[in-house]
């Protein structure tokens, strides 16, 4: 498929008619446009023309009312159309999709629009019922993600390497579809129908023979069961496809939910933290109140100690007076005792007169002014004040208040963080995201069950096939010449089915090897780290980088993911049963300049036709495009007329 021209009318920011030619002898068309100008709308216009669906940034189908240019719709013009002119293997096609409201009233939902699709193939109009099958033959919607590339693939591609049980079924299936595996599976289904038909004819022939008839009845019953189970299998596969589609549609919301969920958990954590801090604060206030009940004595201690020091000093002075007075009194008493006895009790000599000495001592005693009552009073005061003792509440209160101050800081910080998260959460539709997540989980669970049922049913059909084959062998032994040719036909069908069944596994292996080989070769061209050996493919077509030692590289940057994804897309295009144009929206966002240059050099060889929608931050026209100048067909610039209108201007070509 080669797109020659795209014409849009009132689509997104493109008010009125706009025409973009992608025709020419060279493979690459560049459309430059800064953010919000309409690059993604251009990609959506192609998707909408082909399949009637435009996707928003969450990959959800967009409502028609939102697709029509706002200036046009506000002036009452709700007509919108996109025309694609393309050829497939030299056969010209013109596809036009057009919508307009059924009534003159302002449309409010998709059903308010009448949609018309016209397809001219090789100058002949196709019937309406032939159009969708024809488009799906040319570029099936289910493989369109490899041609209309807008970054979605990166997320899906990364899921190929994720947990096998939970990974998306759709992308692996889409890869096998683009590589042509279903064609072989369809052949097996057709051969089975042929086998059943030949077998029925054989059984009709054998009804006359009793033994053969009995075997024929058993064979018929087995085949009937097989037919039922095959129908069930088809039904299960259809259900699996539907559920996978639903799961894919929910994927973006699920990713959004994961982010919201993280925020909700963070919010819960912050709230719990704040609650815990407040509980501790409340407990500490209670502890402080308890401590304050007896703290007045502690507060009084410094003043009491000051007073005690005064009293103790007074007590010391009084004690000193007391000791001096006691000493003088003792001496006076000794003099008086000696005088009264008249002789010394030791030497028995007459006692000397000591009146003068006594008078002196008595004078000193009088001067001491010792007051016994005062001493008793001071000592009692000291004892009483010493009983007024604090219980160490000051230290307890200090520790409590230090912790309270810290709690205030922690609570303020936690509340600020909580408010930030709360602001984020309140901007999300949490309930819708949670619902989407539940639906996604349910779909994932059902997909697992359906896959198991499909496996069980396939095994059961194989057993029934073996049983039927056994009956046929026995019938062949009994039957005469008349049945021989029919027997031969049945055998041929059986052998062909076996051959194709073996072939489909072999085809898968070979295709995987071919994809691995080509992806590795492309990866080596694209990567700036030449020490890598290449890429290793897994069962789901997930690719792992292999280093110089042959080991898997476990951690990859976002840029590396993009290079690996582009390698896969390149390899799939090389091995695809159908080749188509690659339209890439903002493909270089994550890449450094050297990788960007490598990929730009590779783009012309990636597909027969490549349309790159890029902004100035990704590709600098003067600096980056020299390496592919000879491969560029045309360059357009999406110019902003107003916030609601853009237009294409040719810059080169």
């Amino acid at each position, binding site marked *: 498929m080669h797109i020659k021209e795209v014409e849009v009318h009132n689509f997104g920011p493109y008010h009125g008619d706009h025409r973009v030619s992608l025709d020419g002898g060279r493979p690459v068309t560049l459309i430059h446009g800064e953010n919000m100008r309409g690059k993604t709308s251009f990609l959506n216009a192609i998707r909408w023309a082909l399949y009637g669906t435009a996707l928003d940034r969450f990959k959800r189908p967009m409502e028609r009312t939102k697709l029509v240019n706002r200036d046009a719709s506000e002036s009452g013009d709700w007509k919108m159309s996109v025309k694609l002119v393309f050829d497939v293997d030299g056969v010209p096609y013109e596809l036009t999709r057009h919508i307009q409201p059924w009534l003159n009233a302002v449309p409010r939902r998709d059903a308010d629009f009448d949609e018309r699709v016209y397809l001219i193939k090789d100058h002949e109009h196709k019937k309406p019922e032939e159009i969708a099958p024809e488009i799906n033959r040319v570029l099936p919607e289910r493989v369109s993600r490899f041609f209309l590339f807008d970054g979605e693939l990166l997320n899906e591609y990364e899921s190929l390497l994720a947990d096998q049980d939970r990974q998306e079924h759709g992308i692996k299936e889409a890869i096998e579809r683009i590589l042509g595996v279903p064609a072989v599976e369809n052949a097996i289904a057709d051969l089975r129908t042929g086998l059943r038909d030949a077998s029925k004819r054989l059984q009709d022939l054998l009804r006359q023979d009793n033994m053969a008839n009995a075997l024929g009845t058993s064979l018929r019953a087995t085949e009937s069961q097989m037919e039922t189970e095959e129908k069930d299998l088809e039904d299960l596969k259809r259900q699996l496809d539907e559920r996978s589609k639903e799961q894919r549609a929910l994927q973006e919301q699920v990713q959004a939910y994961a982010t919201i969920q993280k925020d909700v958990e963070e919010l819960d954590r912050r709230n719990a933290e704040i609650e815990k801090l407040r509980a501790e604060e409340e407990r500490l*206030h209670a502890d*402080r*109140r*308890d401590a*304050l*009940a007896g*703290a*007045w*004595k*502690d*507060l*009084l201690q*410094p*003043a*009491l100690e*000051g*007073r005690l020091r*005064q*009293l103790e000093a007074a007590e010391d002075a009084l004690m000193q007076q007391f000791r001096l007075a006691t000493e003088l009194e003792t001496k006076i008493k000794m003099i008086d005792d000696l005088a009264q006895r008249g002789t010394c009790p030791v030497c028995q000599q007459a006692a000397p007169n000591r009146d003068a000495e006594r008078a002196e001592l008595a004078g000193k005693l009088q001067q001491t002014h010792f007051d016994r009552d005062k001493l008793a009073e001071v000592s009692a*005061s000291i004892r*009483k*004040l010493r*009983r*007024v003792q604090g219980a160490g509440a*000051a230290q307890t*209160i*200090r520790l409590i*208040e*230090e912790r309270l101050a810290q709690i205030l800081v922690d609570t303020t910080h936690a509340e600020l963080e909580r408010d930030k998260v709360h602001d984020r959460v309140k901007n999300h539709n949490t309930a819708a995201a949670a619902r989407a997540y539940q639906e996604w989980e349910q779909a994932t669970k059902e997909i697992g069950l359906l896959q198991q049922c499909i496996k069980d049913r396939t095994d059961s059909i194989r057993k029934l096939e073996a049983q039927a084959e056994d009956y046929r062998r026995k019938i062949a032994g009994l039957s005469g010449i008349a049945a021989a040719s029919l027997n031969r036909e049945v055998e041929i069908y059986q052998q062909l089915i076996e051959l194709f069944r073996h072939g489909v596994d072999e085809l898968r292996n070979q295709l995987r090897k071919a994809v691995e080989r080509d992806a590795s070769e492309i990866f080596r061209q694209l990567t700036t780290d030449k020490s890598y050996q290449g890429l290793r493919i897994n069962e789901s077509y997930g690719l792992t980088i292999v280093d110089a030692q042959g080991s898997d590289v476990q951690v990859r940057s976002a840029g590396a993911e993009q290079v690996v994804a582009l390698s896969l897309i390149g390899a799939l295009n090389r091995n695809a049963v159908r080749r188509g144009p690659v339209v890439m929206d903002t493909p270089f966002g994550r890449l450094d300049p050297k990788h960007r240059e490598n990929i730009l050099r590779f783009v012309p060889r990636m597909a027969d036709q490549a349309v790159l929608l890029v902004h100035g931050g990704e590709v600098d026209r003067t600096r980056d495009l020299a390496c592919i100048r000879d491969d560029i067909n045309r360059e357009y610039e999406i110019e902003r007329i107003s916030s609601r209108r853009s237009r294409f201007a040719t810059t080169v070509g």
Partner: protein
Amino acid sequence: MADAVNIGLSEEGHAAIQMLKDAGVFNEMQDAYRFAIALAIARGKVSPETTKFRSNWHVNGIDKDESIRTVIMEMFPAAADRPYAYAERLADAGVLELGSLHKAGTLRFADLFAQVVAGAGVAAPASGG
């Protein structure tokens, strides 16, 4: 004159102690009352003798072990004949300070203890009166 048997606070003092109780600073008003007496002693503050008091508590409830009476009699000899009347004036001065600190949001008991230990506002034994 006989000493007071029922003691209380000025109107402003009552408002302040009610606020401290309501704000959960103290378990009981009597706890705040005793703490206020100690604070006033430490700060060397006392409400004027002319203050009009509204009695609220019996001295037996406020001073079960007579520690307050002892402290006032020992530290303020001049007030020794009517210690509870003096305690009432001390409590009023202390409660007004606590109320004012609480209102300003600067009531930190650890700070009060630190200031008292550092000698800021520690009262010298007063003469009472």
